[in-house]
């Protein structure tokens, strides 16, 4: 029984700050943007949060696929910035997109991979026919303490996927995960900003998990990197996904359409899913897409996806990722600090 993506939608706030502007304020050197391969990052408006962005991306997914929200039997929202510690994001999304009340819901947390975990949960429920359609969302308004290295990349964005069995725009051919207990990045309850293990976040965390999940999936599918037209990897900065792609044998051309981090920063739970959305925005029927997320703590979910004919029917019924990227309005650091309510030093 094939299952996969019935529709998808993305959302990126319109404000941007240039990484050079942040470096100027903190007196860091000019090479930071180039070293990170991140030049601009998205900034939420002062009345936007993980919930409002989840709703916007979900509404885009509903209109793109002309999905009847009453068919949705599960909503799972993945984020590390749910605005409530207790009170789900997913119920607000369900109400705002006009679902019936006959759906199950929960919020997922797994650093930056909570959204892909939500897709896997929906695949299970859809594949076993417990529900008709599932809605999986990755949404984050990520936080970096002022002056911390994370501040250069911590951005905001969301992507939503309607998962089902019929009218697929892309079939999910297979998925493999790789998970270990690795404390590379964390935030304790009640703390406003996360902590991280510095260089420890690279080799034993990102690279080990992404390559293990990706190789596991290639083996399961009996496929090689060149069998795919596109690849998307979690993108905490602009360097890691390029390096991991090379390590696995994917080319720069394969990852280019989904490499959004240089223009919008790290959208955490949104990152791999916005990258996939940007790739679907330009994929052709029968193209294959390889996707691997990463969440600190740590784990990776890898997906093998094959685009169907229906992509051409639905593509233009909602804004593309590049439509949002094109709408940028730039802030200086003072306005940015005010937007983020960052003055709690």
């Amino acid at each position: 029984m094939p299952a996969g993506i019935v529709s998808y939608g993305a959302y990126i706030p319109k404000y941007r700050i240039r990484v050079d502007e942040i470096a100027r304020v903190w007196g860091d050197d000019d090479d930071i943007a180039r070293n990170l391969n991140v030049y601009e990052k998205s900034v939420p408006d002062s009345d936007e949060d993980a919930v409002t962005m989840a709703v916007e991306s979900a509404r885009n997914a509903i209109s793109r696929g002309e999905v009847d929200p009453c068919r949705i039997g599960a909503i799972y929202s993945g984020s590390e910035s749910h605005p409530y510690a207790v009170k789900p994001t997913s119920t607000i999304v369900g109400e705002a997109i006009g679902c019936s009340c006959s759906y199950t819901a929960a919020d997922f947390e797994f650093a930056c991979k909570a959204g892909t975990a939500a897709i896997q949960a929906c695949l299970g429920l859809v594949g076993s026919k417990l529900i008709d359609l599932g809605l999986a969302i990755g949404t984050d308004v990520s936080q970096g303490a002022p002056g911390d290295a994370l501040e250069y990349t911590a951005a905001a964005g969301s992507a939503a996927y309607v998962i089902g069995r019929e009218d697929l725009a892309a079939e999910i051919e297979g998925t493999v995960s790789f998970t270990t207990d690795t404390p590379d990045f964390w935030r304790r309850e009640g703390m406003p900003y996360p902590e991280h293990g510095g260089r420890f976040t690279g080799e034993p965390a990102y690279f080990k998990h992404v390559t293990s999940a990706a190789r596991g999936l290639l083996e399961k599918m009996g496929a090689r990197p060149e069998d795919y037209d596109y690849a998307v990897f979690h993108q905490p900065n602009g360097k890691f996904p390029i390096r991991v792609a090379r390590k696995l044998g994917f080319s720069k051309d394969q990852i280019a359409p989904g490499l959004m981090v240089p223009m919008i920063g790290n959208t955490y739970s949104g990152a791999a899913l916005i990258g996939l959305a940007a790739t679907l925005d330009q994929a052709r029927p029968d193209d294959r897409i390889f996707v691997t997320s990463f969440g600190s703590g740590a784990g990776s979910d890898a997906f093998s996806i094959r685009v169907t004919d229906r992509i051409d029917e639905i593509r233009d019924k909602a804004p593309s990722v590049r439509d949002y990227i094109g709408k940028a309005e730039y802030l200086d650091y003072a306005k940015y600090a005010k937007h983020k309510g960052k003055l709690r030093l």
Partner: protein
Amino acid sequence: MTSKAPRFWRCIPQRYNLIGTHCHNCGEYYFPPRTLCPNCRRDAKIEDYKFKGTGKVVTYTTIYNATEDFDRMTPYSLAIIQLDEGPRLTGQVVAAPEEMRIGMRVKPVFRILGKEGERGIIYYGTKFVPAEEEIR
């Protein structure tokens, strides 16, 4: 602090999705929703109606000084918006003060309307942004 959660909860359909009513008999639209149609009285055929949320600014005011909870949003503009179906409502337009003009087309977005301080509930709902086709 007493939470306004129950009052907010009752208004969720209106605030999230602009659910009003429509009288099938005379064709009139109502927002906020009415359960009686003053035009038709006993002949009224009232049903729920989800407004498209597109409309135009009839008039507006820009707020530069606000109470503590809204201070971070200043300057912001409150407008009377005429929805395309007819009814008028008051809503916030998310736009720079210099972008605002009477007659501008707007479309709905989902935003935070307010918060009950640090501990209370967060009010979500509909605000408006300039609709692209009108940007010149």
